[in-house]
Each structure stands twice: as C-alpha cells, then as structure tokens.
C-alpha cells in the first residue's frame, strides 16, 4: 500500500510496496516520538498513481462422493493517492456460497445444504511520514447469519539506511452470530490482534521478514451447523511468520519462500511452508508456479469418527447427553496435512494494464500430517481454485 522513493518504477504491480520498507535506526524510541521530523533518506510517499484492481474467484471443493461448497466472488480494490503524504484505499467483495457441508466429520448423509451471500468492504487511510507510515483501517462483513466489524491501526518505521523496517499493528473485531437453525441467537465474538514485524535487507538480492502475530478472542467459537460442536469460549492464537525473497541473476527470476508456525490454546500446532517462483518472460508475460505444504495437529477436544455402539453416529462412545464438555467433529479441527500446487500467469498490456489468471489445486489428507499420525477415518478433501484478474493504473 505504501510507496517510497526507492521504489522500482514498474507498471506491472498495482499494489506498491516499500522496497526496503521502514525500520529503525539507532533511535527507535526517539523516532517514534518525533516521527515527522526525521531527515528523509528516501522518504515514504504516497503512490504516484491511482490503481484499481479486480478479481473474480471461482472456488469449488469436494470429497469422494460429495460435492461440497461452490463459491464465486468478484472483488475490487482502489488505491487513491491524495498528494504526497496521504492515500486512501477502498475495497469490496461479494461472495456467493452454496453447497453442502457435513454435519460431522466427512459424513455424506445429512450434510446440511446451504446458500448464502457474503458482502464485505474495507476502507483505509494511510499517512506517509519521512521515515514511516501510519494506516487506519476499518472493515465490515455481512452474511445472513454472521456480521463482523473491525478496526485496525498499523505503522511502519525505517532505519536511516532503509535496510531495516519495523512494522506493528493492532486490531479489534466485533462479530455477531445468528445461525439460521437458531441453535443460538445474537451470540458474540470479540477478537483483538497485535502484530510486530521486522523486514531486513540481507543483501542486494535478498530480503527477509519476520512477523509475530497474537490474537485473542472471547465468545462463541463453536460451529452452529455441526452436530455436537462445543468449543471453548476463549482462544489465543500465536503465529510466527518468516519470509525470504531471493532474486536469481542468472534467470532474472525471484524465489519467495515462507514458513509459518502456528499455535493456539486449543492445542493446535501447525506448520505451513510455501514457495513461489516468479519468472518474467518475453512479451510482458510473467509466470509464477507455487507450492504450499501445511500440517496441523488436532484440537484437544476433537474426536475421531468412532461412534457409540448404542446411539450410533455422530455420538462418540460414552457421550454424555446434556453435558457441556468441549467437543468438535469438524474436519478443520482434525490432524491432517495439506498439499497445494498451482500457477499464476500474468500479462502486461501496454504500460498501465495487467491481466492475470491463477489456478490452484488443494488437497487434504489425514495421512499427510507431518511429525506423527493424522486423524483417522476422514475422507480426503479437494479444492480447485481459479481466479482471473485485471489491474489498471491511471
């Protein structure tokens, strides 16, 4: 979202990002206090041109013998510079989701059919300072059964030599849940997030980033459409994200590697590794193959698909009716591994227009969990994602 004087002038990207984004020098604390007064090195400035981006997402998932969810979502994003020191960004999307979702585990019979429209919008204002940026953002999302409102504040600061950038962010969200089956009504979920990150130039062809985010939430975390779902009313989530980009002089291509470690108070631990390689080609084409591996352990209250001999499914053996113990039979809370591969092709048309298409194949299996066994007895899960997009600068 931010631009800087050190930025490569390149019409292929709609979103301009600081090259060697902000960070701090010897004066981190002093800098925070006298932010606007710092001598510019290559000052942060608003993007020089306005940008508009559009995407259309077509998503479809399934398991053997069950077509699950289909989603179609057009989205739009506009970034407008207002002079050198300000910019505003606005975005919106409409997501049409329909299909069937298992009520427990990957059971096909009795899968709940649904259809819903989600509308979401976001607005952000960024102020550019000589050595940093400050962004105030708001977003809102609305579905028939779910509403969410959030506010965020993010900042960045650069070192004098622009080789180190510190970023921080805080956000709060307020959600209201009113499921169509009226299992609960007017339930609330309040979440707050913090982020702390550092981006470091490691060499003329290498840049690294390390982010830590922590989110804590209170309220209704259960899935009202799953048969027996009952989850703790508080959750803490920590994620540590490490990213590294390297440019290969021989091919003019760029490798982008990222690893995330995730841990939460439901005892889910996850590792996510992703690799992309951006290769510019003749005639304004760019191709980007991508690979992503994910592995997670199960929530401590996840139960395997083993059912009570008397009551049958979905009741686990010895299930206490009317009890309030934590339980989930949601596939997403189980232990599994996921593999995903795909490619994005973009084509620059003239100086101002870029067209792109991305295709991705995603698959989850219990047996693909790394470091230990995955949850047994679940069907594999497949998703196919196709996205087309266009972006224009003026």
């Amino acid at each position: 979202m931010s631009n800087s004087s050190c930025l490569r002038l390149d019409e292929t990207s709609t979103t301009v990002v600081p090259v060697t984004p902000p960070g701090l020098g010897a004066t981190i604390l002093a800098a925070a206090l006298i932010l606007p007064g710092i001598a510019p090195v290559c000052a942060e400035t608003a993007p020089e041109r306005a940008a508009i981006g559009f995407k259309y997402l077509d998503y479809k998932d399934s398991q053997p013998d069950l077509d699950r969810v289909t989603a179609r979502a057009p989205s739009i994003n506009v970034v407008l510079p207002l002079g050198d020191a300000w910019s505003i960004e606005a975005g919106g999307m409409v997501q049409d989701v329909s299909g069937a979702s298992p009520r427990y585990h990957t059971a096909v019979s009795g899968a709940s059919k649904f259809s819903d429209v989600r509308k979401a919008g976001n607005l952000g204002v960024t102020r550019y300072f000589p050595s940093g940026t400050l962004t105030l953002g708001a977003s809102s999302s609305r579905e028939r059964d779910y509403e969410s409102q959030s506010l965020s504040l993010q900042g960045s600061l650069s070192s004098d030599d622009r080789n180190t950038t510190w970023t921080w962010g805080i956000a709060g969200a307020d959600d209201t849940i009113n499921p169509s089956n009226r299992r609960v009504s007017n339930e609330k979920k309040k979440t707050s997030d913090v982020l702390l990150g550092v981006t470091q130039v490691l060499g003329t062809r290498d840049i690294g980033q390390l982010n830590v985010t922590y989110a804590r939430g209170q309220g209704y975390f259960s899935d009202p459409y799953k048969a027996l779902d009952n989850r703790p009313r508080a959750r803490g989530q920590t994620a540590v994200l490490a990213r590294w980009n390297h440019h290969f002089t021989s091919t003019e291509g760029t490798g982008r590697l990222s690893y995330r470690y995730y841990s939460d108070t439901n005892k889910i631990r996850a590792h996510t590794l992703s690799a992309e390689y951006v290769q510019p080609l003749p005639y304004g084409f760019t191709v980007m193959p991508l690979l992503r591996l994910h592995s997670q352990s199960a929530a401590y209250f996840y139960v395997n698909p083993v059912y009570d001999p008397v009551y049958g499914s979905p009741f686990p053996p010895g299930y206490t009716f009317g009890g309030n113990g934590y339980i989930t039979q949601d596939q997403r809370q189980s232990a599994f591994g996921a593999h995903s591969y795909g490619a994005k092709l973009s084509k620059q048309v003239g100086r101002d227009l870029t067209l792109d298409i991305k295709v991705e194949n995603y698959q989850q299996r219990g047996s693909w969990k790394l470091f230990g066994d995955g949850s047994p007895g679940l069907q594999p899960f497949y998703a196919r994602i196709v996205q087309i997009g266009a972006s224009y600068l003026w």
Partner: protein
Amino acid sequence: MSFFDVKGRAGRGVAAILFVAVLAAPTHALERGSVAPPFDLDGTKGAVKLAKHQGKLVYLDFWASWCAPCRQSFGWMNEMQAKYAMQGLQVIAINVDEKRDDALRFLSSNPASFVVAFDPAGATPLSYRVMGMPTSLLIGTDGKVISEHIGFKDADKIALEEKIRLSLGISGAGK
C-alpha cells in the same frame, strides 16, 4: 498471560536490534562547504568530468531507472537546464544502474537535455555518500557543496529552484 509474553519476547528482540543499530557506523551526507569529490565517467556524449564544469553552478543528480521519483525529476531538470543555462547552470545526472541498457531504456522514454553519465560500479555515489534515491547536490563555482537534497516530489520543486536562483545570484520571484 500470553499477551504479555508476546510483548516481553518482542521487547527482547527490540533490545537486541537496538543494540546492533547503535553499533552500526552511521553514514553522514557530505557537509556544506566541503569540496565536491572529482569524477571522470563515461557519458551519453563522451567523458563527463566534474573538473571540466568548474566555474559553473553544477546541479548534480544521482538517479536510476528503477527509481520512481527520478522520472518526475527529469522533466524538471530539463526545464531548469533550459531556463538557467545562460546564467551558468549545468545539470549533470549520474546514472547508477547496474546495466546500462536499463538506463538507456529509461532515457528513450524520458529524454534528457542535460549531461548524463554512467557509474554502474557506484564509486561516485559512494564518494558523495548518497543516502537516498534520487539525491541531488548544488556545487558552487568554487567546486564546493552548497546544498544537498534527498528524494524528489512536486512540492520540492519551488524550494529547489529558489536555491538555484539564489546560488546564481538571481533575485526575485521564481516564475
């Protein structure tokens, strides 16, 4: 509480990086009044030597094809060169691209009516202790640095032109 753990952890990280940042030797820009380091570079129209322009007011600019504000500065530098050439202004723009082709491509869409030189090795920006892109310096007729400016925005134009006029001994409004 986990929340405060995060802060504590971050705090240690901040402390560690602060410590390192303090150790890192700061670079300072060239001071006003210091002698502008000489250079002898290859240019679009033959050799470019600072010494050859002694006796003129030199507006020295460091630019690269990948630097967004540099594109804006080219039009303005053309304008300044045309307006104040008679009064003794010489604009010299030193390109710091690694590949000359990148610079030539930039020049074909942003023609320059001033002197352009190439320094792919980066010896000149190092000797001038360039701290951001673009950086420009005004060098007086005595070969000494009058002022330095980092970055280039529309809003900078008036003040930069005023400095040129002042250094040329022209008084009154700029435009």
